[in-house]
């Protein structure tokens, strides 16, 4: 692997001075620029045909009617297809190569899941259809709920949260409701400093005072510091396990037991569940609430930033406080949806709703298809291969990149490196942008905050060994260039659709909408 991708296409290949050549169009072969839709057409046209009914008087709306037509262009189908196809080619994606963003679990998105989610019997159902018309949909929610409960060893699950952070809110509200139910006004939430940024944001939104718990030298929660802080004012702890340094919290059960003994609850951020699915059940570790990102562990597509889905599994202590709606399986085997009509009598301590309707059904069908495909044995293999791939990356870069907790033993599903040893003036950012030129998406950078210049690599189980070897070869090359101080690396990326973008200008004078048709 001396010359990875040596045969690959590069935009400046051909002649030595190709980079200086200018084309009349501004495009370069398959590197295509694309204007905004507002620059492609003017308002007044449409690319959709309608079947108008025989008569269509605008009765009764007189004073409410729009004064001016909506000033948006309508493009024909060929123009529309071309616009979005050209734009799509300016994106990196899992379908193109490894996407090793730590704590994001960018695994392959199986296409069977897309197919089943689009069956009219799922995709074309109204959420308020009478229950007699949607028994199969309620069955999907209930079957997925069953799997999530079994895989986590928990008591119940709230399916409606729309994303991981929304699930955190749900879990923290369950804790708040449980405390209120016993007349306890605890105000402090303990959050380890290696926590995801959403954890303190969530607890603060819920009205808790945040207190940080430091990490110890090996990258785990400082157990002694945590135990010392527990007391009658502590509502609970929000902990990520495996943690954001890619390590399993060995003392998890001891932490849970101590928090419970002090009258608090344990929230676990389940973003890293992929490392332990089928191997360890959080319920066995004393967790009270944990959100599960279906778009991470259970393969539903990230879609360029959502939609996510964040069901929250709950312990027996917190289950009575979960939100509406939920499903129950009746004695005759049918599944019933419990919402406002029955909630008051059947779920009197529930705190209400997280959102309209029943949750991210389109993600439930995909996640259930994924879980059934892997089964109990396959999910266990998922965790093992994810952890194996991460350790392979970690150990293959021994001596090339500094691994601050490399001596702590094996990592879980992500490998953590720091910027120690890079030449003066060279940083994690340069390695990340260099990876772009190498044809890879960068890893998560500058997170977790406990490591200087952190680089968090999560390969996931869906990368082949050959693919990992190519990635490792590129990262090794970049590490050497950064140690030697190669100036070309400072200005990377050179081969992407754009060079480094000016984020300061974007924030100083925000331009958030197009105003090209308005007087300056």
């Amino acid at each position: 692997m001396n010359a990875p991708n040596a045969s690959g296409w590069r935009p400046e290949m051909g002649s030595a001075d190709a980079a200086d050549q200018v084309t009349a169009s501004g495009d370069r072969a398959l590197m295509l620029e694309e204007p905004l839709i507002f620059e492609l057409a003017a308002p007044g046209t449409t690319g959709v045909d309608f079947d108008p009914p025989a008569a269509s008087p605008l009765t009764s709306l007189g004073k409410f009617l729009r004064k001016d037509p909506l000033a948006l262009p309508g493009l024909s189908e060929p123009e529309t297809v071309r616009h979005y196809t050209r734009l799509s080619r300016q994106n990196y994606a899992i379908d193109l190569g490894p996407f090793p963003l730590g704590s994001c679990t960018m695994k392959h998105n199986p296409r069977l899941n897309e197919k089943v989610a689009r069956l009219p019997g799922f995709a074309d159902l109204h959420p308020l259809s009478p229950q007699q018309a949607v028994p199969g949909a309620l069955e999907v929610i209930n079957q997925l709920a069953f799997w999530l409960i079994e895989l986590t060893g928990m008591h119940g699950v709230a399916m409606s949260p729309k994303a991981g952070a929304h699930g955190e809110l749900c879990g923290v509200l369950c804790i708040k409701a449980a405390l209120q139910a016993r007349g306890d006004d605890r105000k402090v939430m303990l959050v380890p400093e290696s926590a995801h940024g959403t954890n303190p944001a969530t607890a603060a939104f819920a009205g808790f005072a945040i207190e940080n718990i430091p990490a110890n030298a090996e990258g785990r929660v400082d157990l002694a510091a945590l135990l010392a802080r527990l007391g009658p004012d502590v509502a609970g702890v929000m902990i990520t396990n495996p943690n954001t340094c890619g390590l399993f919290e060995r003392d998890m059960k001891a932490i849970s037991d101590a928090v419970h003994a002090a009258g608090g609850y344990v929230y676990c951020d389940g973003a890293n569940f992929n490392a332990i699915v089928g191997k360890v059940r959080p319920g066995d570790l004393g967790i009270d609430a944990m959100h599960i990102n279906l778009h991470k562990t259970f393969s539903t597509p990230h879609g360029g930033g959502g939609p996510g889905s964040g069901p929250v599994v709950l312990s027996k202590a917190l289950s009575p406080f979960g939100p509406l709606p939920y499903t129950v399986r009746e004695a005759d085997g049918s599944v019933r949806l419990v919402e406002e009509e029955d909630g008051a009598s059947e779920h009197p301590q529930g705190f209400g709703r997280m959102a309209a309707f029943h949750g991210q059904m389109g993600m439930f069908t995909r996640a259930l298809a994924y879980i059934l495909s892997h089964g109990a044995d396959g999910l266990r293999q998922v965790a093992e291969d994810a952890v194996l791939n991460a350790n392979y990356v970690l150990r293959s870069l021994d001596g090339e990149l500094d691994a601050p907790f490399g001596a702590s033993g094996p990592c879980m599903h992500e490998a953590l490196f720091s910027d120690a040893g890079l030449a003066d003036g060279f940083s994690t950012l340069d390695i990340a942008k260099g990876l772009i030129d190498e044809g890879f998406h960068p890893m998560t950078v500058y997170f977790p905050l406990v490591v200087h210049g952190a680089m968090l690599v999560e390969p996931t189980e869906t990368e082949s060994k050959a693919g990992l070897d190519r990635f490792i070869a590129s990262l090794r090359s970049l590490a050497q260039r950064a140690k030697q101080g190669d100036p070309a690396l400072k200005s990377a990326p050179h081969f992407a659709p754009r060079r480094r973008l000016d984020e300061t200008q974007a924030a100083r004078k925000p331009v958030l909408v197009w105003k090209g048709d308005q007087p300056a």
Partner: protein
Amino acid sequence: MRYLPLTAENRAEMLEQIGAATVDDLFVDVPVEARLAGPIAGLPNHASEMAVERHMAALAGKNVSAGSVPFFLGAGAYRHHVPASVDHLIQRGEFLTAYTPYQPEIAQGTLQVLFEFQTQVARLLGTEIANASMYDGSTAAWEAVAMAGRVTKRSKAVLCSGLHPHYVSTIRTMAKFTGDTIEWAAPRLEAEPDTAGVIAAIDAETACVVVQYPDILGRVTDLAAIAEAAHAQGALLVAVVTEPVALGLIEAPGNLGADIVVGEGQSLGVGLQFGGPYLGLFGCREKFVRQMPGRLCGETVDAEGRRGFVLTLSTREQHIRREKATSNICTNAGLCALAFSIHMTLLGGEGLGQLARVSHARAQQAATRLAKAPGVSVLNSAYVNEFTVVLPSDARDAVRRMADRQVLGGVSLGRLYPDAPELANGLLVCTSELTTDADIEALGSALEGVLA
């Protein structure tokens, strides 16, 4: 195991490179008592693609899909035709399998779409700016109330009685976190919304008034009058649009004085999907930009001076601000925003107007037909494509019995307001460009049949 590329030989080779004897050596930090010895008992093992497809298709086959019967449900989720190119384009792997565009040099496709989306949404809602989307309409309404509290430094929200009850419940959940006061009462079966009542509830403590437009009963509220009253007290008007197609016909809330406009964008491009994933729309005045929740995409230039787009103002967001963030949200509804944006690009303002007109004409036709049914009356004096009829008996029962006749005839108010028996005879009926003459006759006959 078709999703796992590693072979047994690969695994052995990699373990050797790592210096571990077995894969369990990599789980050494998990206490022995917490480790499962093998696959979890009682669960099935892996299954072939065809077996899974058969299982899922059987479940799908038990449901009555909206397109298979005369269909008249709305109440916050709307069925419109989605052009075939929309679903084709959102399934391009470069969109479908990309992450949040944190590396803008290789995410210009997603970012330019978001910039176009923000422009489309702002113009649709009549606001100066819009964000890159939120989870759905109900959580966008929650975020709007929270934002109004930050802007005004007040903590009371007045919700109009015509706000979708699920949105009311969602906002009340938020108030359990923040301690805000939420004022709301169930609607009355009257032809016009209670504008005077809303105005009377606004006082010097009020952070915002939240008005759905058109409201849950399909009525159209005089937003300008409420905006004036709210502003006179230093409060903000938050308008909630659950059916954006209506804005093809009626004036945009931002043009009527609304300070924040949120909406459910599902009715364009996204589809019904049994309630999610949907698409939260969020627009507001530019002066509030730093109090806004959610992701924002902004225009900038790259090192060679070429136009490009980045996520911006992330100093409001949780991954930078942690406990001081404007919201804990760390995702949007990217793919649903793409679907909405493509559908809107095909429609344009002209097409949205036509879509709204056809949907409205079908509603008038349905209202005329239902008014002929004995004992049935149409409530609304004005509506776009959804209206309320009052039946002589409980509408929950009528809905169930129409479903027995293979007609999905609407949403009963009893399901939405189980605590308000005075609303039990109300039925919400919604139409769209997909509604046919035959559908409307089937609805009329089914309703007459179940009421007979």
